[in-house]
């Protein structure tokens, strides 16, 4: 969003950056060793639901492809619409790579349909905390909820410090947007 977009009042949502997501596959070992946290078998992609028939068609296509999946793809996929107009597609299965692949496939389909700006975030559960990938920023940030609307900032800073070498992380804590009550 440049100065001219502001000046002329043009709203343009930056298209989702999907590639940096793969870095998580290699960083998982680092997280396990240094933070003593294992991937808890739960991941999700969070999408803004758009009021458009083409978008609905993509949604159905995603469901079809992920449901078929094939023998290689062992994660169980579920779709869940929350009260705020966002769709959560959840992946449960022990293998982090499966979740990353599934998330990437989903994001790709949405991107091809021209709706890449509806990609909000991807979320991975590690024990009692989460790693969130922001599609706007193309970076990861930690999220440690301690209640319905409270979070452990000190621990979040420690986690970011630890994973910063292995992952592209969000430096600005103001962009560590909370995602309360995730269904994963």
């Amino acid at each position: 969003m440049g100065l001219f977009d502001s000046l002329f009042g043009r709203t343009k949502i930056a298209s989702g950056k999907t590639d940096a997501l793969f870095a998580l596959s290699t960083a998982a070992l680092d997280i396990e060793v240094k933070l003593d946290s294992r991937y808890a078998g739960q991941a999700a992609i969070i999408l803004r639901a758009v009021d458009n028939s083409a978008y609905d068609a993509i949604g159905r296509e995603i469901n079809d492809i992920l449901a078929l999946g094939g023998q290689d793809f062992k994660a169980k996929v579920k779709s869940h619409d929350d009260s705020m107009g966002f769709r959560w597609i959840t992946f449960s299965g022990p293998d982090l790579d499966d979740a990353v692949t599934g998330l990437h496939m989903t994001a790709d389909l949405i991107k091809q349909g021209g709706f890449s700006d509806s990609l909000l975030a991807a979320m991975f559960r590690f024990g009692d905390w989460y790693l969130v990938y922001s599609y706007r920023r193309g970076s990861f940030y930690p999220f440690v909820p301690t209640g319905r609307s409270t979070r452990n900032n000190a621990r979040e800073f420690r986690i970011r410090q630890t994973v910063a070498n292995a992952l592209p992380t969000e430096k600005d804590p103001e962009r560590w947007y909370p995602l309360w009550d995730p269904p994963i």
Partner: protein
Amino acid sequence: MTAMAKSSRPWYGRDYGLSFRMGMTMFLLFALYAAFIVVLWRLRVPRVTLVTIMILVGVSQLFLSDKIVLWTSGARLIESQQAPQLHQMMARLAQLADMPTPKLAWINHRMPNAFAIGKNPRNSVIAVTRGLVERLEPAELEAVLAHELTHIKNRDASVMSLASFFAMVASFIVQQFFFFGFAMEGNQRGGNRNSNGGQAVMVVWLASVLVWAISYVLIRTLSRYREYAADRGAAILTGHPGYLASALEKIQSGVRVIPNRDLRQAESMNAFYIFPATRENSVMEIFATHPTLEHRLHRLELMQQQMEKK
């Protein structure tokens, strides 16, 4: 698969007409102000006086406006524990728009309305009234927040104060003409140019009145265009133009049931609100800060159709 167009063009398209009209209005304002400066310069208005006025106007715009708005509206900041749902909505929208999350403020008033203030996205506040939260469905409330967030993203507070800077200078000259005239004449006598000093003062006064009047219409035109832009942004951020449309309808009907006395209290805030707190429809639209409800709904409907075409 057939419904999916393989393109990266955003699903909502663009409104070139709106951008053009907005650019045109800003250009006209710029031209008007440039002409005003040339007139002031040619007529040798004392620089000290002029600079003093500009500093006064600038300082009041920079440091007072936000605080006055918050103070007159009676808004107070709320923490996320006090309104978790509202804060979560705000955070999601901010994440989608790639902006820092604005602070939220609460106004204990039954009139449904909302406004945004802040010169930059990092220090911005979005205020909502109790009436807004009570009357609107969550999806409609989100659309209103998205409208205000777009104001912040488009830096409307800064654009509008920049656009009205010289208009305020002109209005200062018109209103304080008595002192201004003395300052100018005194200066000209001192400078040994007494032949047509009185005439020059009159010309400066007339020019100021003219600039004030023309810029008034232009600034309000710009304000309406920026409301349209914020409506558009809300539709894009929420993905549903229909929610903002029904929110605006509810806000208008909510404003209708409020007693006149309460409305008059709120009137000074009208330029900031998502919807002006007034029932008078007789006022011509060119003098209004906001487009009429009909026009806004029409635009949102067009957007819905445009989205469907993609």
